[in-house]
């Protein structure tokens, strides 16, 4: 397996929003989901997740409630609000535009210029 990539600044929020969009998750679950869908290609220090979560809650993009995990532990679950869904759409679009632009720059062959 290749070394996990460092996260670009500002992309953690997008990853959190995306993972939660598939259903309510607790903090640890968010980490697992990111690892699972990225095939463990991204490295996040576990604690670093929480400031991000709280920031999104404060911005009204996530809402939280206490519940029980699959192995019966008390945990706080996060889900998207309407504003969060809207933000996710916008961020996804702009990320895709950026990614494809950069990809096309990087794939350009010398003779094409």
């Amino acid at each position, binding site marked *: 397996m290749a070394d996990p990539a460092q996260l670009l600044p500002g992309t953690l929020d997008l990853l959190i929003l995306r993972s939660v969009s598939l259903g309510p998750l*607790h*903090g*640890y679950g968010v980490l697992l989901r990111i690892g699972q869908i990225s095939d463990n290609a991204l490295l996040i*220090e*576990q*604690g*670093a997740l*929480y*400031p*991000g*979560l*709280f*920031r999104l*809650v*404060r911005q009204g993009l996530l809402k939280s409630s206490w519940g029980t*995990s699959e*192995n019966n*532990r*008390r*945990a*706080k679950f996060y889900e998207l609000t309407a504003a969060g869904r809207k933000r996710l759409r916008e961020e996804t679009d702009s990320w895709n535009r950026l990614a494809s632009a950069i990809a096309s720059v990087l794939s350009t062959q010398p003779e094409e210029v």
Partner: protein
Amino acid sequence: MKFLAWLPPLAAKFFHRAQLSDEMDQELRSHIQLRADDLERSGMPRTEAERRARIEFGGYQRYKEESYEAFGGNFIEIFLQDIRFSLRVLRKSPGFTITAVLTLTLAIGANAVVFSVMNAFILHPRYVPQAESLYGIQHGSDNGFQSYPDYLDLRDRNHSFDGLAAFTFALAGLDTGDNPSATWLNETSGNYFDALRIRPYLGRVYHGSDEHGPNSAPYIVLTYAYWHSHFQDDRGVVGRVVQLNKHPFTILGVTPPAFHGTLLFFYPDFFVPIVNHEQVDPGYDLNTRGIRWIFEAVGHLKPGVTPAQAIADLNNIGAYLKETYPKDEGNVTFTLARPSLYGDYLGRPVRAFLAGLMLLAGLILLAACANLGSLFAARAADRSREVALRLALGSSRRRILRGLFTEAVFISLAGGAVGLLGSIILLRGLSAWQPFHQWPMIHAPVNPDASVYSVALLLALASGLLFGAVPVRQVLRTNPYEVVKSGSSGGVGRRITARDLLLVAQIAICAVLVTSSMVALRGLVRSLYGNYGFDLRNTIVASTDLSMAGYRGDKVPAMQKRMRDAVATIPGVESVGLADNVPLAAGSNESIVFSDKTTDLRPSNATANALMFNISPEYFNAAGTALLSGRTLTWHDDQSAPRVAIVNGEFARKVLGSATNAVGGYYKMRDGTRVQVVGIAEDGKYNSLTEDPWPAMFLPILQSPSSSTFLVVRSSRDPQQLAEAIRRTLHDLDAGLPVDIQTRYQGLDIILFGPRMATIALGLMGIMGAMLSITGIFGMAAYSVSKRLREIGIRIALGAQRKEVLEAALGRAVKLLAFGSAAGLLLGLLATRVLAFIVYQATPRDPLVLAGVVLGMSLLGLLATWIPALRALSVDPAILLRAE
């Protein structure tokens, strides 16, 4: 209000901190447990799994704190922590704290006082309802006087004012049954209260419809203050009949507490209709068009009328008046101005003065901030090791700066609070102050309101941020590794910095103020010994107006003769002169005069505007005025004798051509009467000590009698005893006649008010300047000593003498002080030319002043460098070098 709405959520956030923190702990721990569960499932023992999970989680406290901050709950607590820390730090260096707070107290207090005064007089004068549309009419730009017929024409012919009122002042004797007393009142037009939109507080006010010709409206409307102090809030006062100058007047009502006429500084006791002028203040005839004695005409502009339109309207009336009454009217151009300070006459100088003061106060604050900034920088240098340690231990620079700013804001708020408190106390005193003993109705209350408090708060915060910002660069540049290793290093830069220039400027300004206040003080002292065309010494003046006790016509000269004779028999009295007015007693009569050849007696053809005194033959002797040539007046110069006058030298030169041949010559009065000059008196000062020579004429009092009575009593007896004797004597003649008795020196209070105020103001500003210079020099000296402590230690270790140590430590500060003082002294001497307009004989050529300034500035330098010098001298090289 907004602030209050914002408070509860903040407080809630604060008090729920414990709960929030608890919940966060639960959540983070649950995360670690979940991770440990996973690890355990993959075959790790539970204890190892939990350890592993904690390691993978990372810095627990750090993430918790970051989460907390991300949630937006942290600010207030960090702030409180900072405050606690700052308080502890400040308590540890009381000298610094006290200096800083005191400096800001002065600076912010000065701003608060000046702003309060400005707010009360210029920005938001609340003296009548809808003050924004109220205007007073002026001729030209500084004179609002009207004659009654002119006022009536202006009132009835204008299309611009929603009612035009007029008022003037009078002194009258009020007898409410027991103790007749002199009162100051406003005579007003009947429509006065309606035009100013004043509703009565009690009873009713009079209206235009109450006027039916001369003496038809014997009514009194009391001001709230007079009703409160003299009628003890008695509501039964309405309808009561009292004696005003021995005429029955009916009290109609009381005006609201806030209303005291349209002049900010003038507090009349009550109002009476101007149609009763002849009873209230006999003197000027109501129907004479040519004599302008009514103080001012005021009114609200109609909605939609601009001041320019109103001025055009008034000028049309002016042109009409000039055409219709060519004998009485000259060229008149009207202007409008705010009546609160009598238009531009007082308004312009007061506005300019206050604007200047405000600017000065602002500069003082700025300078205070700069000085506190350098004090702060000195402290930051002292604490560089502490800062470096904190940085090395992982504190962020932001956090350290925030701490510094908290200290600064704390000091500035403390200074602001104390300054505001001081200013409120000062303004209380100022409000209660009645500067003129014979004019109790003149005072100027200033009540600071919310806008003053908020301005003071804002200034305090702004200055805290301003001087807190000075050491920022120092902290940002601190390299913890270097500082911890080798101690703070580096000498003071040798180049001249902006801070040096600022300090020199402050010292210079301080020296200017000290110089000019000393010059003013010396001038003030000297002005008590000047020659003003009469002798100030051994003179007592008893003044009254006989109309206050009901004397009229022939009874006036008879009573005046009895008064003269009675006072002359008091033992020790050398002579008694009688006059209707005396020079430098505030208020004088003027009249235009014509040369004898003039036949067209229009005002524009007047030769001079001369001061007019009606005097008894003994007056010159009693007053100590020298007769240069000709004869004195005699009691034979009466109504049946030809009109004669004694004129002063200036009058003779201006009207009769020369002082030497003037005796025997003639001139014409306003009404064309020919008057023969029989004597020439010395020139004098009549309205102010700094005025240019004025023409003045002294007329025999029997030829133009007046109920206004001044007895000038010359005697070398103790003035207090003599005054008592005079009071008793006059009381025996008529118990119902209020008399004011004071020495000639006391009488100068009014004239000397301006110079005294200027001297006090300069002195106060000089103290402020000194205060600032001290903190400035102190800050700079302290900074340079603490920066060079190591160097000084080495010097001492190498055997430097005390003198050399001091030179090294303080040489720069002392040089700046010397340079600034010299510059300031020179500028101050130049500035006294301006001062000479206000203060009599203000001259810089005075060794006492020079010596005083040099002494003062040296003292100041000594005071400011005392503590740093002690510190530099007490350096123990052994301890210092070991510690480094």
